[in-house]
């Protein structure tokens, strides 16, 4: 047993790298690893020397107080910010500096803290746009709607309908997203990210501003996605109850630094983490 497997209280994976969670899910080898990332904006250091890894099939939470650098971390992973120092390793290879759309093509999808849907398009079109990295037809084929263009459109429509069924949004298929209530918009955004069939899914506060019922729905969808598609998920969330219930391992950030990393129970009892969240008494 590796030391990590012991701390997780589960048996080792048959493949040798990773472990089996108490609820029977297989956590595989490392998919993405950030090494010594430092990100500065002018004089402000948003992220200081942070390293952690994300393993295949796990739900990895990043928590921390406001302004801790969680979203910046996600933006670094999705190629939107380029850190001054540090490396990102994806599927065993060091990733060169990339534009966000190139990162997307590698199989990393994400949702945003403030909903970033395409307001002028229907739910269906939004989700279809999510599959853009999987479409191969050329513009000439599309202009003539000939051969591959139509075949591809039909095949992807079918795949999108499966996602629509999965997330239970059949009734709003044709609705322009701007007309939808907040909770549904969040769900459509998840659908759009899922449509890319990502290997790694980054969720930036998927439950912000939701009521209890909506949070329960969203938690169920996140668990289902992880369970049924085996998608690795990185989750930023403020609701501690949700984080502790959903995640396999948690990274804790404060003022751009990593102050904790481990399974939820271990992190919860870490004095440094408690200090960051609740403060300490100076007697």
């Amino acid at each position, binding site marked *: 047993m590796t030391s990590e497997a012991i701390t997780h209280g589960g048996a080792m994976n048959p493949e040798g790298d990773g472990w089996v969670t108490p609820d029977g899910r297989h956590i595989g080898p490392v998919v993405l690893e950030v090494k010594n990332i430092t990100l500065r904006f002018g004089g402000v250091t948003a992220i200081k020397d942070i390293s952690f890894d994300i393993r295949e099939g796990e739900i990895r939470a990043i928590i921390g107080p406001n302004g801790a650098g969680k979203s910046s971390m996600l933006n670094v992973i*999705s190629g*939107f910010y380029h850190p001054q120092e540090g490396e990102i390793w994806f599927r065993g290879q060091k990733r060169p500096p990339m*534009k*966000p*759309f190139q*990162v*997307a*093509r590698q199989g990393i*999808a*994400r949702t*945003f803290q403030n909903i*970033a*849907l*395409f*307001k*002028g*398009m229907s739910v269906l*079109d939004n989700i*279809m*746009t*999510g599959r*853009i*990295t999987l*479409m191969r*037809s050329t*513009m000439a084929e*599309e*202009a*003539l*709607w000939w051969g591959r*263009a*139509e075949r*591809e*459109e*039909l095949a992807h*429509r*079918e795949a999108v*309908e499966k996602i629509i069924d999965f997330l239970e949004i059949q009734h709003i298929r044709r609705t322009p997203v701007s007309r939808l209530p907040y909770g549904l918009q969040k769900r459509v955004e998840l659908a*759009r*990210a899922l449509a*890319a069939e990502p290997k790694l899914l980054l969720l930036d506060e998927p439950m912000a501003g939701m009521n209890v019922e909506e949070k329960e729905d969203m938690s169920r969808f996140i668990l289902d996605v992880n369970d049924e598609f085996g998608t690795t998920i990185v989750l930023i969330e403020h609701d501690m109850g949700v984080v502790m219930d959903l995640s396999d391992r948690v990274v804790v950030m404060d003022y751009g630094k990593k102050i904790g990393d481990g399974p939820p129970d271990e992190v919860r009892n870490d004095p440094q983490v408690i200090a960051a969240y609740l403060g300490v008494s100076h007697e």
Partner: protein
Amino acid sequence: MFYREAGDFKTSYREDMQTFPIRLDRRAYWTIVALAFLVAPFVVNDYWTNAVLLPFLVWATAALGLNLLTGYCGQVSLGTGGFMAVGAFAAYKLMTAFPGMNIVFVVLLAGVVTAGVGLLFGLPSLRIKGFYLAVATLAAQFFFVWLFNKVPWFYNYSASGQITAPERTIFGILVTGPSAAPAAKYLFTLTILFGLAWLARNLTRGKTGRSWMAIRDMDIAAEIIGVDPLKAKLSAFAVSSFFVGVAGALFFTVYLGSAEVTEAFGIDKSFLVLFMIIIGGLGSILGSFLGAALLVLLPVFLKNVMVDILHWETYIAAHLELMIVGGLIIFFLIYEPHGLAQLWRLAKEKLRLWPFPY
């Protein structure tokens, strides 16, 4: 009661994704196409063909082009007049340099030339947005008017600086030049527009159209889900310029016959096309047609009413016409920013339920 989807079942995604999913819409569309091709050229008199139908077709082509760029991809352009001039002068040079070339190829090649030029002027869009981009495209407008005035090679060193379209035929029928029959010109222009509108529809319903709209609605999110902004913006500029170039070539060869760049392709033309798509509906193919129809028909209609019926002075009518069109634009911007196409959509939604309130 009559306009409804009930009973119109779809059993495949192909049926569900067709352009007009409702049977009645489909029938209406083919009826209009049949009327335009088979009835209009033989019924409408020469004055109406020349003064209304031909300019409508030409401007609809230009509006369609600009709508792909501005309405679908969200990149404002004030260079439409300049790009139309590129199309017109490219057509002129092609016609005079290769007298044997078929006019269809001339028009399409003029579009291709304009697409290349548009691509070049689309490069700033990768760095700048909104107002700033509009100003950059304005530079294209002024540059081309200046260029086609200043360099005599473009107008083959003619003394007046004008370009005149030579006579060209299709299947032995004259379509350009002063002695071409209006019906022949009309059918030629209509055929090209019909083909282009079909291309535009195909592009906008597939991957390319969705990547354009994604860039328009939220460029950062578009990039994060895998849209290459460079490719999306430049392809929008190229395709749009192709349409506008074809419109310019048709405007010159078929409609005007001879043209002088400052007068025919001035900044007012850029604004005219922009007004067409704003009034017609941004991001709608139908809207491009409606907007062009309104802005071509309205002046003719107003002139007929004010001069011929009310017997007002021509200059008063001309001024009132400008005021009415201006007022209309402000009205649309305030009350229906999505234009005539949106009014049409709302009317259809109401019709589906009519005469019952729910």
